[in-house]
């Protein structure tokens, strides 16, 4: 995979972009060569997205190119004449953005949306009659791997899955027959299995059509799998530009090394817990949760008869992709939802039909860490109040006691005591997670549901949170239900794993058993969709080495 010697399609020379304050892009030099797939990696806030928009000449409001220039085949893009400029966006350089559903016009049929782009660029062959445009749109949809494209073309975006929507966006990008594709975190938020399929298809089409692709991502695994060259971005600068293979072997920059190490980290699997004869603290039998949806004859079977139990001190991981019903199951357990059927027994007491008032005293023993840290914290209240609230469940306390306890909690999750006086909006995502964890642990519960504690976090923060949870768990001897789709965190936290798919538990067992010899196809697919950094390298020793 050597670099092509040809002249670059796109070249950035000292590109500096600012929004009035410090530059967001700071003197970027970059060359995108014909037919190469070029990865750009970096953590949140590194300026990756702004880079893509700048190339497209479509900076967010307030943004301005302060220095440097962007060249398309050697000519600055701001020197393009009007017809050329009109052709530039979508016709020569096309963007594939994040969160495809938001990129589609919600009230137009997807086929027509592709048609709009075709018409705008006079493709194919300048023919804009209804029929040929539609045929071409359907052909594009087939090309990006959509089954039954004739029917799907008449669908509205809300009727499509995330992966499907992403494919439509790719089709729209290909519609103008551009030479350059900018893929800005195009698969963020998609399930791992879908992500793999979409990326696969994208790269395949690009190679086929001989396109240059700028693949922006925060996932080194993706870069490792699909890119020829890569750049590492941090704080608006490129810290390293390199061939992928050379980078994997010898990252030159310290920051790059950190990133790579965090990504490589493959923690040791938790050993199975020693079984004792204590009864399980939580025992769930045939838990079922159906939602009635207006306009649909069938209820949504979010949770469809699952059974599991958690022993004292044990961690069970509930693994599955989005929509599999994991979160719903967790909420039923804590009686935030009224399950349709099945029994839930906590500490020997059947809590299934308990009235809220009767159940409230039990809440101090079972708590939950919510998925989205930000939305699970009341934005109007200070951290102090948020942490003090559950304390009322324990026993009446004086103000001073409460203050002391809050301070203890903050210390336990490694947060500064000053955090007590601010509101959640002023915290970083990682800090918010920690507050959420502290809040759940305030009453010293015996059982905690962790709902996706590591999603939407940068890789290094993720590792810290996992360490924290692991430490707390062992020090408090917590039983936990760990809901996640992040297999790495499962490896490091769970004693046992239950794999959920479409509301059902496909298989459950000890972590090692599931990871090493899965019985179900679905489980295998799930495991395979991880894009490990070192999957194809021959260094077997790396697993667990960074733990």
């Amino acid at each position: 995979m050597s670099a092509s010697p040809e002249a670059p399609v796109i070249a950035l020379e000292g590109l500096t972009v600012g929004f009035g304050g410090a530059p967001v892009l700071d003197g970027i030099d970059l060359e995108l060569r014909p037919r190469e797939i070029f990865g750009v990696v970096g953590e949140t806030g590194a300026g990756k997205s702004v880079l893509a928009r700048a190339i497209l000449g479509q900076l967010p409001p307030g943004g301005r190119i302060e220095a440097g220039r962007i060249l398309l085949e050697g000519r600055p893009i701001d020197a393009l004449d009007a017809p050329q400029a009109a052709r530039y966006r979508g016709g020569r350089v096309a963007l594939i953005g994040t969160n495809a559903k938001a990129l589609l016009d919600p009230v137009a049929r997807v086929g027509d949306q592709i048609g709009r782009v075709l018409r705008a660029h006079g493709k194919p062959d300048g023919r804009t009659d209804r029929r040929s445009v539609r045929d071409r749109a359907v052909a594009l949809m087939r090309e990006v791997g959509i089954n039954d494209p004739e029917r799907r073309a008449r669908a509205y975006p809300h009727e499509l899955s995330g992966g499907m929507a992403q494919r439509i966006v790719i089709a729209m990008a290909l519609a103008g027959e551009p030479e350059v594709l900018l893929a800005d975190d195009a698969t963020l938020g998609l399930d791992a299995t879908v992500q793999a399929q979409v990326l696969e298809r994208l790269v395949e089409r690009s190679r086929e059509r001989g396109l240059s692709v700028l693949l922006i991502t925060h996932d080194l695994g993706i870069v490792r799998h699909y890119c020829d060259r890569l750049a590492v971005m941090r704080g608006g600068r490129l810290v390293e530009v390199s061939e992928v293979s050379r980078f994997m072997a010898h990252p030159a920059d310290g920051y790059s090394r950190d990133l790579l190490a965090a990504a490589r980290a493959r923690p040791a699997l938790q050993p199975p817990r020693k079984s004792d004869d204590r009864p399980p603290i939580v025992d769930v039998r045939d838990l079922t949760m159906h939602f009635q949806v207006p306009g649909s004859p069938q209820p949504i079977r979010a949770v469809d008869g699952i059974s599991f139990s958690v022993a004292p001190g044990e961690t069970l991981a509930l693994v599955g992709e989005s929509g599999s019903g994991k979160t719903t199951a967790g909420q039923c357990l804590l009686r935030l939802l009224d399950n349709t059927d099945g029994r839930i027994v906590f500490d020997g007491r059947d809590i299934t039909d308990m009235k809220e008032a009767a159940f409230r005293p039990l809440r101090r023993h079972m708590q939950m860490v919510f998925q989205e840290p930000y939305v699970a914290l009341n934005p109007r209240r200070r951290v102090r109040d948020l942490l003090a609230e559950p304390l009322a469940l324990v026993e009446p306390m004086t103000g001073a006691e409460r203050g002391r306890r809050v301070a203890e909690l903050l210390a336990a999750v490694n947060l500064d005591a000053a955090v007590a006086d601010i509101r959640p909006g002023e915290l970083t995502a990682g800090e918010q997670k920690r507050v959420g964890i502290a809040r759940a642990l305030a009453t010293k519960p015996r059982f905690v549901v962790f709902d996706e504690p590591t999603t939407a976090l940068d890789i290094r923060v993720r590792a810290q949170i996992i360490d924290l949870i692991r430490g707390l768990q062992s020090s408090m001897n917590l039983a936990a239900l760990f809901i996640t789709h992040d297999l790495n965190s499962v490896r490091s936290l769970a004693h046992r794993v239950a794999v959920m798919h479409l509301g059902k538990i496909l298989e459950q067992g000890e972590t090692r058993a599931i990871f090493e010899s899965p019985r179900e196809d679905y489980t295998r697919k799930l495991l395979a969709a991880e894009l490990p950094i070192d999957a194809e390298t021959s260094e077997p020793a790396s697993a667990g080495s960074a733990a």
Partner: protein
Amino acid sequence: MPIREFWRRQPRLLRILAVRLALIVPQMFGVTLVAFLLIRLLPGDPARLILGNFATDESIALYRQKLGLDKDVWTQFAIYLDNVLHGDLGTSPFTSKPIIEDLADRAPATLELILYAVIFTVGLGILIAVVSVVRRGSAFDWGARAYGFAAGAIPDFWVALLLVFFLYTVLGWAPAPFGRMDLMLAPPPRITGFLTIDALFAGDWEAFRSAAGRLILPVATITIVNAGAVTKMTHSVFSEIWDAPFVAHMRACGVPERQIIRAALRNSLPPIISVSSFILGFLLGAAVLVETIFSWGGLGQYAVQAVINSDYAALQGFVLVASAFILIVYSIADILYEIVDPRIRT
């Protein structure tokens, strides 16, 4: 559940219509009941009022009996409901005519006024909002926002007076501000009740000119005052959509600006439909002031007269018709809303 199955199988439009229509019946019943009870609270004894000064207590009692005022409230309501179902809203002692006839006679005046007014209000409001969002930060944008503010602060009756003063009294440009048509002209034969349309049907160009001319000031009044609200609402909806990722994405795909505006407008349609229907319903009541100033002779003035006269039956009739009208408008808006927004499922 076979019924539910059958239901699901019906086309979406049919389901939307059926649900809406089914809702209207209990709503109208509620409206009838509440209006009936509220109106009972009004002071003034209609019998005494109708019979006048020379009425003896005996004749008043007789009249009350005739009107059913001596029975208990629920019996009265039952009788009233029965009459309403037979299309009988009673007879107004102040026009000596069946109320339903009076209302039918006056409704076109009000409808003609407010329909034109809504068309202009919404049209102008959207136009201003779209241009000001597309040309963000321009002088037009600035002016449009200032207008959006100021318009909401101006009392409509005052605008009407100013228009009359400047355009009629001072400049003499506008036609006389009383009535729907020149008093000397014979109105065209009634087909729709809309003078402008009937005049066209009749080919009476002069009548059309007069009727259209008389509409200018009241329609301008309502438009000036209410277009600001439409502008403000459309502005906020449209500018949010204008900032939405999909608009940026269309632009990134090189779709021409005009198409983007059209798509964004299409996305803004649901709230615009709601607000238009709201304004239409609101105007039915709010146009009272404008009607009064321009001696329009519509439903609003009729209702005001009914209150002043303690004309229970007429007021009740008005409430029913007005509520039915508003319900129908809102229902149509809801139906349109659901049709234009494919995300709503019924």
